C-alpha cells in the first residue's frame, strides 16, 4: 500500500518488516520517532533505555542471543555509545544488528553539529544513508542482510530533513527469520587482548570485502545527465537538493552506502566528467575520500561545512540563479522558543536568578532557563555535565565557590548520566548542591517515559526508580523535595542546602504542564485598579503575561493558573478567580 510516512516511521516499518525482535533506544531529536513508531508493533519488544550506551549493549545482547536487534539515537548519543560501538565492530554479530544515528545539521534541536559519518570510518563499520522515507524503509531491511552477510553491526545514518519529512512509501509484510542459535565462541566474543588481536585482521578483511560490495551495489547508483561539464557525487538530503536544481542535466553518482566508499566506481565516474563536484552537508567526508584517490574536485571550497544546504544554496553554487523572494522591509522581532506558561522549571529558575547563583546546566527544556529575563544558566555542554562539572568547579574553587554554585539537571537526564557525577560528588566529597528538575517526563523530545516515571515505552506501569532513595543510596545524606510553584519554599530550601557543610540534592518536583493528566487551574486575572505597572511579574518570562499601556495583562488562552506571578506581585493585582 502506498502511504505517506515520516522518514523515522519508515525506518521503523523497515525494521518491522525485516523481523527485528528487540529495540532499545534513548530519545533524542531527530531520532525519537523511530522507536516510538516501532513500539506500536506488538511483535517487537521495544524499550527506552536510560542512555545510549545501555541501549546499544542491550541491542548487542539481543543479537548475541540470536534475534535481529536495533538501537536508535541522535548524533551526540552515539558519543555516549561509542565505547561498545568500537568493540562490537570487532566481535561482529550473531543475528543482525542495526544502529541508527540521526544527525542534526542546522542544529534545530542540538548542542553541536557533529558529522557522524566519521564514526563509521573510525569504527570500521558499514553505514547506509537513506535520502527519503522509501529508502529509509528499504535500507533498514537491507541493513540486516548486510549485517548477517558481513558479520557486522550496520549503521543507518539519518538527518533531520530525512527523519522529519514525510514522503511516499510502499509497505510490505513482516518476515521473521529463524532465530540464530547462540553458541559459545570465546575467540569471537571475549575481547581480551589475545582474542582481539585475532579479530582486528578480520575487521580489516571485512572492510576490503565491503569495498568490493560498494563497487557493485545498486545502493551507489549513477544517474546519467546530458551535460558532462559537471559530475556530482552526493547522498542523503543533498541529493534531493541537487536533483531539485539540476533535474537530469548533470550526471550524478548517488551514494546510498556512505562507508566504506567505492574506489574504482568513483574514479570511473570522475573520468567521464570535466569537473567532479561533491555536494554534501557538514564535513568534506566524501571529498576527503576522493582526494585520497588523487582526484581533483570542487567541494567544501564551494559548499560550507556549516549548517544545512538547501536548493537555493546548491543552485547558486552551480551557477543557476534562483528566484529571490522579497522580504518585508520591517523590523520583525525574533520568536525564540520559550518555557511554556505554567512550566514548573520557571519558578525554580526565578529563585536561582534572584539568588545570583552560578548555575551549571544540562540538556533538556530547562536549557531555556538560560534565556532572558531569567538568564539563570552559566553553561550547557552535554547530558550529565552539570553534575560532574559542578564537582570540578567547586574543587577548583577550594571552598571559594561553595554556597554560590549549583547544578540543574532534569529527571531523565539525571538517570541518563547525572547519577555517575553524583557518585563522584559523594565519593570525592565536594560540598555540592545538585537540583534535579523532576517534571516526571522526558520533556524536550516530546514526552517519553523514563526510569523515574513509573511507565515504560509501551505505556504500561512498571518499576519506578525513586530519586530520593537513589540519591541517598549513593551517599548523599541531605535530600529534600520542593514544589517549584512555591517560590519561598524553593528559596529557603536552596539557601539552607547551600549553607550546609556537605553535599545535597534538592528535587524540584512538579509534572510538565503539557502532560495530559495535569489539571490546570483557571487563568489569573489582573485587577487594573491595583496594578501599578511595576513589571515585577515580567521577571519570570511567562509568555502569558505582558504589560500594555502601563498595566499587566494575562492571556487567558495561555495561562494555566500556576500562580508563580501572583507571588511576585506586591500589590495583589494578579488574582486567581476565586479571590476576585
Amino acid at each position, binding site marked *: 500500500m502506498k502511504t505517506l510516512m515520516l522518514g523515522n516511521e519508515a525506518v521503523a516499518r523497515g525494521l518491522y518488516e525485516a523481523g527485528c525482535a528487540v529495540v532499545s533506544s534513548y530519545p533524542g531529536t531527530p531520532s525519537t520517532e523511530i522507536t516510538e513508531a516501532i513500539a506500536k508493533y506488538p511483535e517487537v519488544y521495544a524499550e527506552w533505555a536510560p542512555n545510549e550506551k545501555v541501549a546499544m549493549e542491550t541491542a548487542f545482547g539481543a543479537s548475541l542471543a540470536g534475534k535481529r536487534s536495533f538501537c536508535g539515537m541522535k548524533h551526540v548519543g552515539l558519543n555516549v555509545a561509542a565505547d561498545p560501538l568500537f568493540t562490537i565492530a570487532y566481535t561482529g554479530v550473531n543475528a543482525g544488528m542495526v544502529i541508527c544515528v540521526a544527525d542534526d545539521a542546522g542544529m534545530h534541536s542540538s548542542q553541536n553539529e557533529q558529522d557522524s559519518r566519521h564514526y563509521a570510518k573510525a569504527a570500521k563499520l558499514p553505514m547506509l544513508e537513506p535520502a527519503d522515507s522509501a529508502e529509509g524503509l528499504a535500507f533498514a531491511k537491507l541493513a540486516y542482510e548486510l549485517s548477517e552477510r558481513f558479520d557486522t553491526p550496520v549503521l543507518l545514518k539519518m538527518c533531520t530533513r530525512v527523519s*522529519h519529512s514525510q514522503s511516499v512509501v510502499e509497505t510490505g509484510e513482516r518476515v521473521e527469520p529463524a532465530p540464530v542459535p547462540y553458541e559459545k565462541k570465546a575467540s569471537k566474543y571475549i575481547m581480551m587482548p589475545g582474542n582481539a588481536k585475532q579479530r582486528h585482521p578480520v575487521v580489516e578483511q571485512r572492510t576490503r570485502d565491503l569495498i568490493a560490495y560498494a563497487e557493485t551495489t545498486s545502493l551507489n547508483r549513477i544517474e546519467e545527465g546530458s551535460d558532462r561539464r559537471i559530475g556530482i557525487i552526493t547522498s542523503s538530503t543533498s541529493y534531493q537538493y541537487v536533483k531539485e536544481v539540476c533535474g537530469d542535466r548533470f550526471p550524478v553518482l548517488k551514494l546510498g552506502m556512505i562507508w566504506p566508499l567505492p574506489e574504482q566506481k568513483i574514479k570511473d565516474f570522475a573520468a567521464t566528467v570535466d569537473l567532479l563536484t561533491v555536494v554534501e552537508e557538514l564535513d568534506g567526508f566524501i571529498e576527503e575520500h576522493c582526494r585520497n584517490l588523487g582526484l581533483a574536485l570542487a567541494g567544501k571550497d564551494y559548499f560550507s561545512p556549516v549548517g544545512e544546504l538547501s*536548493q537555493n544554496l546548491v543552485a547558486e553554487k552551480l551557477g543557476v540563479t534562483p528566484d529571490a523572494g*522579497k522580504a518585508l522591509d520591517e523590523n520583525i522581532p*525574533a*520568536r525564540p522558543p520559550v518555557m*511554556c506558561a505554567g512550566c514548573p522549571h520557571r519558578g525554580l529558575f526565578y529563585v536561582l536568578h534572584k539568588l545570583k547563583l552560578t548555575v551549571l546546566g544540562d540538556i533538556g527544556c530547562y536549557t531555556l532557563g538560560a534565556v*532572558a529575563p531569567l538568564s539563570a544558566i552559566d553553561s550547557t555542554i552535554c547530558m550529565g555535565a552539570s553534575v560532574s562539572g559542578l564537582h570540578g568547579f567547586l574543587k577548583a574553587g577550594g571552598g571559594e565557590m561553595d554556597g554560590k554554585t549549583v547544578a540543574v539537571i532534569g529527571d531523565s537526564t539525571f538517570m541518563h548520566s547525572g547519577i555517575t557525577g553524583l557518585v563522584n560528588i559523594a565519593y570525592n566529597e565536594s560540598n555540592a548542591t545538585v537540583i534535579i528538575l523532576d517534571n516526571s517526563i522526558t520533556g524536550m523530545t516530546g514526552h517519553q517515559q523514563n526510569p523515574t516515571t513509573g511507565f515504560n515505552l509501551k505505556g504500561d506501569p512498571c518499576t519506578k526508580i525513586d530519586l530520593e532513595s537513589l540519591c541517598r543510596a549513593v551517599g548523599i545524606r541531605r535530600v529534600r523535595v520542593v514544589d517549584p510553584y512555591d517560590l519561598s519554599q524553593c528559596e529557603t530550601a536552596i539557601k539552607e542546602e547551600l549553607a550546609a557543610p556537605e553535599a545535597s540534592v534538592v528535587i524540584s518536583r512538579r509534572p510538565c504542564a503539557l502532560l495530559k493528566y495535569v489539571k490546570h487551574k483557571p487563568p489569573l486575572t489582573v485587577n487594573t485598579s491595583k496594578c501599578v505597572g511595576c513589571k515585577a511579574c515580567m521577571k519570570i518570562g511567562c509568555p502569558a503575561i505582558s504589560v500594555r499601556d502601563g498595566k499587566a495583562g494575562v492571556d487567558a488562552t495561555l495561562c494555566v493558573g500556576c500562580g508563580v506571578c501572583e507571588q511576585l506581585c506586591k500589590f495583589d493585582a494578579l488574582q486567581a478567580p476565586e479571590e476576585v
Partner: protein
Amino acid sequence: MQTKNIMIVGVGGQGTLLASKLLGRLLLDQGYDVKVSEVHGMSQRGGSVVTYVRYGGKVYSPVIDKGEADFIVSFELLEAARWMEFLRPDGRIITNTQQINPMPVITGAAEYPRDLAAKMAAAGAKVDAMDALALAEQAGSSKAVNLVLMGRLSQYFDLPEEAWQQAITRSVPEKFLEMNRMAFHLGRNS
C-alpha cells in the same frame, strides 16, 4: 507538472502539524507525489515553526526555499511577515489576524509591528487576512484555527469539498470531528 509549494507557519503549539498532515493525505489521494517536512524538538516550545508541503509529478527536496512558496498559510500575523521572503512573486499569503506576542515584545525589548497585513499587500503580496480565531470559536474551539485556515486555502483548489472532508475525517480524532468539519466549512465559505 511543476512542483507546487505550500508553507504552513505559526507559533509552536498552534496545530500546524495537523494541517500539514491533512494536506499531505489529500494531495496523495489526488495522485500526486508529496513531501511534507516538519520541525520537532526545541523550536516547538512557543517558537516560530514552519512546515513545508510540496506536491507535483516528482518531488525531490523536502523543503521550500526563498521565493518558492505558492501559498503561505500563517496561523499568526507576525509569522506571515517573517516568512514572506519565501513567497513567489505571484504567491498568496493566507493569514490569521491573531497576534501572539513573542518574548522580545513581552519584555519590551521590541515592538510588535503595526498594520502588517496592509504592509505585506503594499509590498506586492496577495494577502487574505482573516480572523480565523473568531471562526474557530464559532465552530466550537479556539484550537480549530488550523481547519478554518485550511478551509480558506481550499477556495484556491479545484477540488470538491467532499475530498477535503474525507481527508479531515482521516486526520482528526473522532471526538473532535464535527467541530473540525464545521471549522473547515466556515473557512471555506469565509
